[in-house]
């Protein structure tokens, strides 16, 4: 299918057009703002949107263009931000009531970089509360809907960021990924989602969930666009001691080099645990194509990956229980009125936090508590080492590992909400790379017979995001555009 691509279709082309003065940033922003006005109320993608502010930012970019400034490739590109990224003076709730009305007095590092680059922010997107969840149903405000089927979840925790890009309400977006929260919604919404190598992007200003796992990651509709956004936010930030200078911008033209001679590994042992047949079939199709393009596809093993969920659901809640202790009603956010301090703490947090968050805080506190630390948290940290080693070994034999992003296609709203463990088991393919700190990319690989997106995942060596995008780009070129655009963009959409 070759139709003339609309200049607004990719961030890359928007950026070109704005810099070449073929389109004004305001013109571009208007298109996206109008789209969002139409679809966002139904999709519930945003917690905070301010059309005037968006247009003002765009006008500012136009001023800079007129002034002859040399601008970044992202200048004029409409970008959405997950609501756990601090934006100075703009509400940042993390999808929680405990931060309702909270206005950060500073910008996150990535927000600073994007502002400087001339990005145009479309708003703050909905997410599972404090990034805890796989469906965005844990947002204290409302759930977000999947643009491809409004009865289904967009995934989580960065559901809003994924859906808004899929629905073309924004050209790009940022989410955060701790156990799959960028990749899984990317797969569910039919877009690209990257979890960078741990440390590749500064976490300064990302509201912490699990500090040793959290990474900010881009959503986009093309592989090149992912690279464009990654390039603008990667690299060492002196305000984050875990951020790394090794993270360098990706060479876009390198993405076009194809996969000839590359070695791709598939962890068959991990896939034996129940994968939806349509997803398996998609994996086979992609594998076949990569082989045809000259890649060597082999089997690898990740023997400890099956323990990842258990490991993750000890480490992440433990760190979260500590990271969320600051929400105590003392200095900001919601405070429940009380006569004494201890009651204030307990009711503020009891009322301000939703179910999933409270559940994880209890779990994490328990895992760290005296008498249990060794059996739970410490043991989990050791198993994490084993998972990392598995990846190190598998990646010595390969350039990238290919596996599904999720075991199932997008499920229905309400389907898994009452069974937390069932919800956690969705993360079986995404958590291992998080534990290893490895870069991982979900890319759209097709759709189910009923038209729901399928995404597959590539995991690579540290700081080799470019390698992953190169493989995905190869598939992207070969596959055409199997998904198209969700009906809701043109006013349709099952509801």
């Amino acid at each position, binding site marked *: 299918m070759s139709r003339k691509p609309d200049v607004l279709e990719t961030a890359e082309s928007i950026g070109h057009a704005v810099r070449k003065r073929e389109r004004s940033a305001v013109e571009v922003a208007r298109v996206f703002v109008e789209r969002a006005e139409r679809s966002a109320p139904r999709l519930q993608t945003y917690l905070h949107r301010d059309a005037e502010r968006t247009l003002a930012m765009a006008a500012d970019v136009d001023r800079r263009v007129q002034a002859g400034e040399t601008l970044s490739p992202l200048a004029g590109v409409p970008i959405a931000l997950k609501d*756990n990224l601090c934006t100075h003076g703009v509400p940042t709730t993390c999808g929680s009531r405990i931060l309702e009305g909270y206005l950060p007095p500073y910008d996150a590092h990535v927000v600073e970089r994007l502002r400087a680059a001339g990005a145009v922010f479309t708003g703050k997107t909905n997410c599972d509360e404090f990034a805890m969840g796989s469906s965005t149903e844990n947002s204290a405000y409302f759930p977000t809907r999947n643009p491809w089927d409004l009865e289904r979840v967009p995934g989580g925790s960065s559901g809003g960021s994924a859906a808004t890009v899929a629905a073309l309400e924004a050209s790009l977006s940022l989410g955060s990924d701790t156990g799959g929260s960028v990749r899984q919604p990317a797969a569910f919404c039919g877009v690209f989602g990257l979890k960078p190598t741990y440390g590749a992007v500064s976490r300064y200003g990302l509201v912490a969930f699990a500090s040793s796992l959290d990474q900010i990651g881009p959503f986009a509709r093309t592989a090149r666009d992912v690279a464009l956004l990654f390039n603008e936010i990667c690299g060492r930030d002196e305000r984050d*001691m875990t951020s790394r200078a090794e993270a360098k911008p990706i060479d876009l033209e390198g993405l076009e080099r194809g996969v000839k001679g590359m070695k791709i590994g598939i962890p068959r042992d991990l896939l034996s645990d129940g994968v939806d047949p349509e997803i398996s079939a998609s994996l086979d199709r992609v594998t076949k194509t990569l082989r045809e393009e000259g890649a060597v596809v082999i089997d690898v093993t990740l023997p400890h990956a099956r323990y990842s969920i258990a490991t993750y659901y000890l480490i992440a809640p433990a760190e979260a229980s500590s990271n969320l202790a600051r929400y105590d009603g003392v200095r900001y956010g919601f405070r429940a009125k009380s006569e004494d301090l201890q009651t204030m703490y307990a009711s503020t947090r009891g009322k301000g936090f939703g179910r999933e968050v409270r559940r994880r805080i209890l779990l994490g506190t328990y895992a760290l508590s005296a008498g249990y630390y060794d059996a739970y948290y410490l043991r989990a940290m050791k198993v994490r080492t084993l998972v990392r080693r598995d990846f190190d070994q598998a990646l010595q034999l390969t350039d990238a590992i290919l596996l599904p992003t999720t075991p199932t296609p997008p499920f229905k709203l309400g389907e898994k909400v009452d069974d937390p463990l069932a919800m956690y088991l969705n993360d079986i393919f995404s958590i291992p790379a998080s534990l290893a700190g490895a870069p991982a990319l979900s890319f759209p690989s097709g759709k189910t017979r009923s038209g729901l997106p399928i995404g597959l995942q590539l995991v690579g060596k540290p700081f080799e995001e470019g390698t992953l995008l190169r493989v995905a780009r190869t598939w992207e070129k070969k596959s055409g555009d199997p998904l198209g655009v969700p009906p809701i963009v043109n006013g349709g959409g099952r509801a």
Partner: protein
Amino acid sequence: MSATRPAPESPSKTETAPTAGRYETVVGLEVHAQLKTASKIFCSCSTKFGARPNTQVCPVCLGLPGVLPVLNERAVRFAVMTGIAVGGTIATRSVFARKNYFYPDLPKGYQISQYDRPLSSGGQVEIQVGGAWKRIGLVRIHLEEDAGKSLHPEGRQGVNTTLVDLNRSGVPLIEIVSEPEIRSGNEAYDYLIRLKQILVYLDVCDGNMEEGSLRCDANVSVRPRGQTAFGTKTEIKNMNSFRNVERAIAFETERQIALLESGGRVVQETLLWNADKGKAEPMRSKEEAHDYRYFPEPDLLPLDLEPRWIESVRKDLPELPYQVRERLTRDFGIPEYDAEVLTETRALASYYEEVARRSGSAKLASNWIMTEVNGIRNKQGQSIEEFPIRPDRLGMLVKMIAEEKISGKIGKQLFEMMLTRPEDPEALVKSQGLLPIDDEASLRALAREVIAANPGPAAEVRAGKERTFAFLVGQAMKQSRGRAHPEKIQAALKKELEAT
């Protein structure tokens, strides 16, 4: 070069515990020292004391959502210096950990500290007990951040609130934990004096308990003498001076002994020292057992220190108190006692050195400083830096006395004058007409004057009443305002008395 003197055997056999008799006091001290860095341990806010509330704050030390700690290099250096100074082993890898608890002045709901793997292990502080040196071992020294301040003002209508000031939140601290080898309040006092001295000599801490740059908690227990097992210990907090630490330990020791003697048992609890009442009282709220749920701080990488860097810190370490003491006794031949007094601060030791060199008389210089200088300083509450007589000038004065150019008495007069007149003693002696009279002719003339003014006593002396001679000498000194040479005026008087 080892950082400390070779230690005597420990623990010392000299017991000076006030519980002579059946019980032995066992005390361990935990000292928190604020490090004199310009900025806080994890952010770039100022650490200056006394600023308007909540003006030295930023998102990091306020514990706002999304912030991260960034470790201050100088805080690490100061902590390493301290560890080396006390003879500790510096860990090439130490790990930060979160200590989780809820308190309004702890903004993140956890304190970043060190748990399993502290920066320094072992080491000692030597104290003096009954004239002998005793080694108090150290368990560890680790880095951590300070919390903010909570104020509890009395409210209206019984509605009490707590006010929180986060200026202090994030100030770097080192926690110094001693072995339970202290045996009395007196020993604890000396331990604190000497530990503070080390910290001040290193210039890593002001050591000011009243301002809070040095804080101390005491763990106290007693046991029957000869028993090796420890008794139940209590923790005492809220002591705001070294003397109060001493008093609190004495109080608690007595209390525990009395309790045991009457058949009771000591309960493990935390007590607050009430200086006004002179008692240690249990905390009002029911103490829940703290479960701090320590785990390694994921926002900070382990602190890896290169052995070469540690070595360079060791080489650059300023002289420690014991080293200065040794040097003074060795180079100047003064007694240990003098060296002890003169090295109270590095500045005082430097002052002494200059006076000693200028005067060429080490012992005399020492006496003058210990007695006259320190006398004035104590009365005025002055540090040696504030003391008005420059060391070179004092040195000159002491030299004049040592060379017998002036008498000690004249010296004291000059000293008094020099407190308010910044002049050289040699010039002052001339301008004040205090030049000694020691030439034969003047002394004889003076003797004649004194005899003429005191015919009665003169006659008595001539008659053989020797005791009255002293009176005449006194008169001569008075007349000459002390300028007459003490021995020579006696000789002159004798001669004049014989002559008539």
